[in-house]
């Protein structure tokens, strides 16, 4: 096989950090090459340079044996390099087709004079490609109406439409269901078999194991090794990645249902556009119980969480917390009543990115003793105390202590900060939505341990996750949502992973 892409001594610095340090790598034509590493190890940065989003500070990138200066995504396009970004780069108020064709719009001329974008042809072509690769989408849908998984598909289609030969996937599976992941992996293999070269960034070792040929491990900006996947175990990989071995099991005490903490009855949520998002949902969570809500993204799970936390008004139904009706209380009352909430979107909901870490850690308590005196004046020493305590207790890594501006922290550490804040509220009920999204194995493990410990302490936990593994590993009770309705609610021990996946796809409709 011949080398398609070669990184030679690539170094990239960001203010205060070396994201990539002297990395040399060869990627062969026609392989699936995985890149593995902790959060912030430098994976995205390395690939962004191949795609022309940044220029390296030092080193060279050779493509097809030729030294290239990839100064913009346009150059990368011309080199037939495509990338699916970790954070979707989609225009919300345009259609799928418009997003896909951006930059290479097919143009026709009216009256032989006025050029215009030929959307008809484009729509047809998008439809064709989406069918060919089993990534069904409706080309004229507007992005803002689409669930996350469809958006992911659009991102992939964008690359396929461009006919790229070198395909970079940056954490493409983070938001997909097992079935979708399965089919995506299948597609990736197909692409490889059709002669494309694939670079896959993921935190999920089993995915790597399943499809990739070789795998590079990055650690703190440095390349620690390139391994043939077939002959390396996942344990070896993760050990290399974090520097020590990680156990994949948790010690779970036996489930003994305590008293009822949360009781949701006949909950109905209706969106601004008058769409029923959550329909007639009832369940309850007890002390020492982890109730997991599984479901494909966009089936009403998040709205349930928002409704419980008071961020979305109820159309119907009631929510009882510890036997007390909180259906119409405001957010703060509910927090004080004992609800902690780790929201799905840490950037725009969970954190105020431009405030300091300390202020974010106090975000839900700043107004109370001892952080605020009776007369409304903040007590900074006490806030600092809380900040530094949480930073050390939860091992939050930040460059300048509790003064760090949260925006500059990595996603994993941002997530830790939220979890630290919510746990320290000492609430009766904790709602976790996608607590490990986009985190590396080490971080995920730590969070799982935390959740388990909270359960042992007798907290009631509502876990909403798209990661079926996570649901299976942690849940005592599993509730599957489909189309805003409860598909099933059962003891975890009575369900297999496969069954849950099927419920999520709406396959079984349980008769009541």
């Amino acid at each position, binding site marked *: 096989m011949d080398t398609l892409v070669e990184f030679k001594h690539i170094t990239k610095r960001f203010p205060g950090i070396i994201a990539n340090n002297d990395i040399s790598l060869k990627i062969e034509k026609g392989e699936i090459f995985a890149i593995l590493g902790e959060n912030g190890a430098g994976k995205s940065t390395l690939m962004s340079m191949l795609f022309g989003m940044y220029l390296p500070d030092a080193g060279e990138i050779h493509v097809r044996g030729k030294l290239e200066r990839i100064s913009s995504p346009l150059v*990368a396009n011309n080199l037939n390099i495509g990338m699916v970004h970790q954070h979707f780069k989609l225009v919300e108020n345009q259609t799928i087709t418009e997003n896909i064709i*951006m930059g290479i719009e097919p143009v026709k001329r009216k009256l032989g004079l006025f050029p215009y974008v030929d959307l008809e042809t484009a729509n047809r072509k998008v439809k064709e490609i989406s069918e060919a690769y089993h990534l069904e989408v409706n080309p004229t849908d507007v992005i803002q109406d689409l669930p996350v998984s469809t958006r992911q598909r659009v991102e992939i289609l964008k690359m396929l439409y461009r006919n790229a030969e070198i395909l970079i996937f940056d954490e493409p599976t983070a938001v997909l269901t097992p079935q979708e992941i399965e089919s995506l992996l299948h597609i990736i293999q197909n692409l490889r078999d059709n002669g494309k070269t694939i670079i896959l960034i993921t935190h999920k070792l089993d995915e790597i194991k399943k499809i990739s040929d070789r795998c590079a491990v990055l650690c703190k900006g440095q390349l620690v090794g390139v391994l043939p996947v077939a002959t390396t175990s996942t344990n070896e990989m993760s050990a290399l990645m974090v520097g020590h071995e990680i156990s994949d099991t948790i010690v779970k005490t036996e489930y003994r249902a305590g008293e009822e903490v949360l009781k949701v009855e006949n909950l109905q949520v209706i969106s601004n556009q008058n769409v029923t998002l959550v329909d007639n949902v009832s369940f309850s969570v007890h002390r020492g119980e982890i109730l997991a809500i599984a479901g494909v993204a966009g089936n009403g799970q998040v709205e349930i969480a928002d409704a419980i936390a008071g961020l979305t008004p109820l159309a119907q139904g009631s929510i009882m917390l510890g036997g007390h009706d909180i259906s119409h209380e405001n957010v703060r009352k509910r927090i004080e009543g004992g609800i902690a909430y780790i929201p799905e979107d840490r950037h725009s909901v969970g954190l105020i990115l431009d405030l300091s870490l300390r202020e974010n850690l106090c975000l839900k308590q700043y107004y109370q003793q001892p952080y605020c005196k009776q007369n409304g004046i903040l007590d900074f020493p006490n806030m600092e105390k809380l900040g530094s305590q949480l930073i050390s207790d939860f091992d939050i890594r930040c460059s300048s202590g509790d003064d760090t501006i949260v925006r500059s922290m990595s996603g994993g550490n941002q997530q830790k900060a939220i979890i630290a804040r919510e746990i320290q509220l000492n609430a009766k009920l904790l709602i976790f939505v996608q607590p490990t999204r986009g985190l590396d194995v080490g971080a995920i493990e730590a969070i799982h341990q935390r959740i388990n410990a909270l359960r042992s302490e007798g907290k009631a936990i509502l876990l909403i996750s798209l990661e079926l593994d996570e649901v299976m590993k942690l849940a005592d009770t599993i509730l599957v949502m489909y189309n805003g309705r409860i598909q099933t609610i059962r003891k975890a021990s009575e369900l297999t992973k496969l069954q849950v996946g099927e419920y999520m796809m709406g396959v079984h409709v349980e008769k009541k």
Partner: protein
Amino acid sequence: MNSIIIDGLSFSLPLFIIALGGIYCEGSGVINLALEGLLGFGAFFGGLSFALLSATFLGNSPSLIYLSLFFAMFGGALFAGLHGLMCIKFKANQVISGVVINMLSVSLTAFFANQINASVFGHASNKFQLEIFPRVTIPFISKIPVLGAFSTNMYTFEFIIVIVALFMWYLLYKTPAGMRLRACGDNPHAVAASGGNVNKIRFWAIIASGAMAGLGGMCFAYSISTNFSPSIYMGFGYLAIAAYIFGNWKIGPTFLACILFGFARSAGYVIVQKLQLPSSYSDLVLTLPYILTLVLLIFFSSANKPPLSLGEIYDQSKR
């Protein structure tokens, strides 16, 4: 009734083209509070070119009038370049930049008008005298009642504005450039990832907005006072901002908003005339379009959706 339509249109259309400039700029994600300054600078530049050219070789040819519109667009675009430089190159806060541009425009045009009049024409003055703008009545259509008023005694610039506006509409909604421009206002990172140069697109959007504001400003200068003077800064730029926010950053509704302003204004004058209120009530009449807007906004605002990334400074490395 006819006079409401005739006067209303001659006010609405320049306002509309200025607002359209705002839509271009804000559609690409850059806040534009500078419209007032841009229209003033455009009118200054147009007035200056008119004065210089008529004093030298062109004499009183009518083509000069149209040429001055072109220069006004150029002047507006030029000054908008400063806004672009501030917002894009220097990553200044866009609101601040707009406010500063407005202040700068007022002091710069006053200063230069004085200096140039004194040194070139030997007569210090802060004005440039213009010609009256030609008006036409379309022969047959104008006979039809009500509808006819829309084609009676119109300034020819009204046609120019309509043509420019149609072209700009086509550019924004039909061409690749327009699509990318709108995408920049929504998610600039998406544009960058597909190989577009966000800063360049935004810069040209700002330039275009300056040109349109300049055109509108010049039309006001012609139709209201037939000269350029500091009284061009009457707040019409702010009114245009209100119009496109009212129009939800969309061209069609913004057009209706401008028509509403213009007609409410001219209807006000007719109403006092009919009611025979004394002139001191003209102050109250002038509030009519603004009150009407406020009231209408109460009903229409809940659907208001500015471009998603409006006001965000584009930084490639920010995620």
